[in-house]
């Protein structure tokens, strides 16, 4: 139940599955429906970058449970050519040649943690996390 979920991303249909898996993990961790949709939307954006710009990659959705909080970790990986200018890509309004923005600024805005590693010939890895604080009562219940 607390394992990583890995979704191979090659076509747009894979994005549907990635969204659903991300939402399911969020739900299991007690996130609200609103937050589940936010996370699923971020997954959709990150996954689409892979489909459109690279053609193949994977998304890992990893549940994180800590004492005072729990989180959904999303890792989007590909072995493509990488993003030339990461800084620019993270700015709103960025668009590549075929008119598709990279959807990264939005994903960065809504997730609590966000890192990109790209270029250097080893593809692109985006890691983003959304956290939810656990209150005292929830923690106390765990200790029973």
């Amino acid at each position: 139940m607390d394992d990583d979920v890995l979704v191979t991303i090659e076509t747009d249909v894979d994005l549907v599955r990635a969204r659903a898996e991300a939402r399911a993990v969020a739900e299991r961790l007690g996130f609200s429906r609103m937050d589940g949709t936010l996370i699923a939307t971020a997954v959709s954006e990150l996954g689409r970058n892979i489909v459109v710009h690279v053609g193949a990659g994977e998304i890992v959705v990893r549940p994180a449970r800590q004492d005072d909080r729990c989180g959904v970790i999303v890792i989007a990986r590909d072995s493509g050519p990488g993003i030339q200018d990461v800084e620019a890509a993270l700015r709103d309004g960025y668009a590549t040649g075929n008119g598709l923005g990279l959807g990264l600024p939005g994903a960065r805005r809504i997730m609590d943690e966000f890192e990109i590693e790209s270029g250097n010939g080893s593809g692109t890895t985006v890691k983003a996390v959304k956290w939810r604080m656990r209150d005292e009562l929830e923690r106390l219940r765990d200790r029973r």
Partner: protein
Amino acid sequence: MAIPILKQGPWLIASIQSALSDSEILALRDDLADMVGRLRARGIVIDVGGVDVIDSFVARSLRTIAMTTRLRGAETVIVGIQPDVAVAMVQFQLDLEPLHTALDLEEGLEVLKSQTNGAPDHGR
């Protein structure tokens, strides 16, 4: 699986009931463009009540649909955006300008009627 499009008078109604893949929305765009021309539709209601996520691609596609069908004389209204989807869209800074949005099918048809100036009955 294609998204069904119904004709109601001069209006076309497309209802998306489940999670949407990119190719499905592109197919919808093509089908609507085709039907607007053939059937001389004056307005389109796209009901996204069943859509789980509206991301930048979906938003862009909906705008494209609206712009291309407008060139053929039809206005488009998007209805049924769910609360959590609306919140996500706003947080991702996705808007549907200049598309009209309304709560549901009934409201959407009202918007179309007022946009296309009154009664749909154009037999005069």
